[in-house]
C-alpha cells in the first residue's frame, strides 16, 4: 500500500496533504492509497481524509495531541510495517523533514527527501529534488523495496476530493514517551495567507529602513495584493518581524507565482528560499544588488517612493 501521512491544523487537512494525495495518485504504484491520521480529537479530519484516500487509518489519542518526532516516527513506522506499505509519503514541512529520517532508519529504507517529482520506473522510485542551495535539480533513485518520501509542499497538484467516502479503521499503536520537554511555545500564527501556500509573496529586507517602514511598505503592499509577507534573516534577527515570515536557507522555501523583493540585496542564503519563484520582482536602490540578476522585473530606486507609488497604482 501507499501510506500517506496526513497533517492538519485547526481541524482541517493542510493543503500539503491534498498535494500528497495528488502525488500518490500520480506515482504509478499499486495501492490502496491509505491515509494515516494522527492526533487527538481528529474525527472531522479523518472524515475529510476519507475523500482523498482509498482507506483511512486513524489513531485518535490524547498522547498525539502534540507533535513529537520520536512519537510520530514510531507511529508511522508501525503502521507502515503492519500494513506492508511500500511507499510512505510525508509532507516536507520542517516537522516532516525532522521525523521522516527516523522512519526511514526504522524501516531500513531509503529516504527521498523534499522531492518535487516522483514516479515509478520498473519498480524503482525515481524523484527529482533541488540541491546546492536550491540551485541544482538532481534526479535520484531509491534503492530498496520500501521507500520513505518527503514531498516538497506547493509543488504537486492537489487531489480533488472524491464523492465516495473511504472506509475508516482505528489503529492501535505502541507509542514511546516523548523525551524532549517543550517548555514554551511561541506560535506565530497570523490570519494572513500562509507563506508556503501564497500565490504572491511580498518580502522585505533591511532596505525598508525600520520596523515601521516594513509595516507601511511590505505589509501595506501585501494587503493591497492579498499576498503573504516574507522577510530576510537580517530583518528577523533584528526583531522587526517574526521568524515564521523568514524566507531562505534557515527559514521557509517558497515558490509563488510572484515574489516581490523590496529592499533585499539577495544574499545566496535568501535566494535559496525563493529562487524557484515563477516571476521575481526586485525593488532596490543598488543597481548592482545580486537580486537583480535573478529578477524578471526590477526597479532601481528608493523603496520609500516606489512602494507607495505601487500601492497607489494598484488602488486605481
Amino acid at each position, binding site marked *: 500500500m501507499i501510506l500517506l501521512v496526513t497533517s492538519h491544523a485547526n481541524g482541517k487537512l493542510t493543503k500539503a496533504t491534498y498535494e500528497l494525495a495528488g502525488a500518490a495518485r500520480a506515482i504509478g504504484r499499486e495501492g490502496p492509497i491509505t491515509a494515516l491520521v494522527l492526533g487527538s480529537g481528529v474525527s472531522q479530519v479523518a472524515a475529510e481524509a476519507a475523500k482523498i484516500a482509498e482507506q483511512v487509518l486513524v489513531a485518535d489519542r490524547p498522547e498525539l495531541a502534540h507533535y513529537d518526532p520520536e512519537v510520530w516516527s514510531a507511529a508511522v513506522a508501525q503502521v507502515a510495517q503492519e500494513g506492508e506499505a511500500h511507499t510512505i509519503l510525508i509532507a516536507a514541512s520542517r516537522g516532516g523533514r525532522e521525523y*521522516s*529520517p527516523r522512519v526511514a532508519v526504522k524501516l531500513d529504507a531509503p529516504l527521498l527527501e523534499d522531492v518535487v517529482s516522483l514516479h515509478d520506473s520498473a519498480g524503482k522510485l525515481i524523484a527529482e529534488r533541488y540541491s546546492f542551495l536550491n540551485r541544482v*535539480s538532481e534526479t535520484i533513485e531509491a534503492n530498496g523495496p520500501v521507500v520513505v518520501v518527503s514531498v516538497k509542499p506547493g509543488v504537486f497538484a492537489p487531489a480533488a476530493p472524491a464523492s465516495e467516502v473511504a472506509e475508516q479503521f482505528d489503529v492501535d499503536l505502541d507509542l514511546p514517551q516523548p523525551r524532549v520537554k*517543550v517548555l514554551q511555545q511561541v506560535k506565530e500564527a497570523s490570519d494572513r495567507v500562509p507563506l508556503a501556500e501564497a500565490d504572491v509573496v511580498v518580502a522585505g529586507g533591511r532596505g525598508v529602513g525600520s520596523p515601521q517602514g516594513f509595516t507601511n511598505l511590505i505589509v501595506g503592499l501585501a494587503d493591497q495584493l492579498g499576498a503573504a509577507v516574507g522577510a530576510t534573516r537580517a530583518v528577523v534577527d533584528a526583531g522587526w518581524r517574526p521568524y515564521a515570515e523568514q524566507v531562505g536557507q534557515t527559514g521557509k522555501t517558497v515558490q509563488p507565482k*510572484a515574489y516581490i523583493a523590496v529592499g533585499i540585496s539577495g544574499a545566496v542564503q535568501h535566494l535559496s528560499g525563493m529562487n524557484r519563484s515563477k516571476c521575481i520582482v526586485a525593488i532596490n536602490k543598488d543597481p548592482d544588488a545580486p537580486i537583480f540578476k535573478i529578477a524578471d522585473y526590477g526597479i532601481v530606486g528608493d523603496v520609500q517612493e516606489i512602494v507607495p507609488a505601487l500601492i497607489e497604482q494598484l488602488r486605481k
Partner: protein
Amino acid sequence: MRILTLVRQVMDAQESVRIANNAVELDGRKLVMDTMDEYGVEEALRLRESGLQVDVIAVGIGPARVEDVLRTALAMGADRAIHVETDTALDPIALSAVIAKIAQSETADLILCGGQQSDWDSQGLGAAVAERLGWPQATWTRALKVEANIATGQHDTDDGVESFQVQLPVVITTQQGLNEPRYPTLPNIMKAKRKEIRKDSLDSYAVTPKVKTTGVAAQSRQRLKKIMDGKDASAAAAQLVHSLRNEAQVIQ
C-alpha cells in the same frame, strides 16, 4: 562529557554552480566547512569554555581533502578528529550508520551537526543519527545550555519558536543565530598541526548508499531581467503593475 561535532566539506556558497560529468564540479572551486556545521564546532567549544569538562571530537567522512575542514575544526579548538576516508558519496541515511558507530565507540554524550547541508540541502542527517542511537533530537537550535546532563535550548519549528529541555545523550542540529563561529588564530593553526586525526576506512562500517543520484542539472530558468529606472516613481510603478498584470499575468 564527550561531544562529537560533525563537519562536512562543501563548495563555498558564493561560488557559482557548474556542472561537469553529470555532477556539480568541485575541482578548482573554493571548498569550506559547511557553515551550518561551523555553528556546531563553535557551540562545542563554548560549552567547554562554560566550565564543563568537555572533550570535543570533530568527525568527517569523505575523500582525502576532507582533512582540510577537520584541520579547521582542530584550529578552532577541537581536541582531536576522526576521518573516515572514502570516495563513495553516502546519502544521509547511509552516512548516519557510520556516525552512530563512531558515537558508540567514542561513548559520546552529545552530537552536534548542521541543520541543513548546503550541498545536498538535506535536513536528514541529525535525525537519522539520533534514531540509530535511540536518542532524542532537537533540530534547528538557536540557543543551547548544558547543565548537569540536561540540555536546555530554543529551536525553530513550523509554527514558531519553541523552548525545550532534554536529557543527554541527544543530537542537536545547529543553525545561524546559535553563535558567531570564531576564526582560527595563527598560533592555533600551528597547534592544530600536531593534533591527532585518526584515519579510518569505510570498509569496517559495512554501509552502502541507499539513494543514487542519476542526473544533475543547474537551474535553467531564464529571467527576463527587465530592470527599470525608478527616478520617476509613479511612472515606474505604473509600468511594473502593467507588466505584472498583462505580460506576466501573476497579479489581478
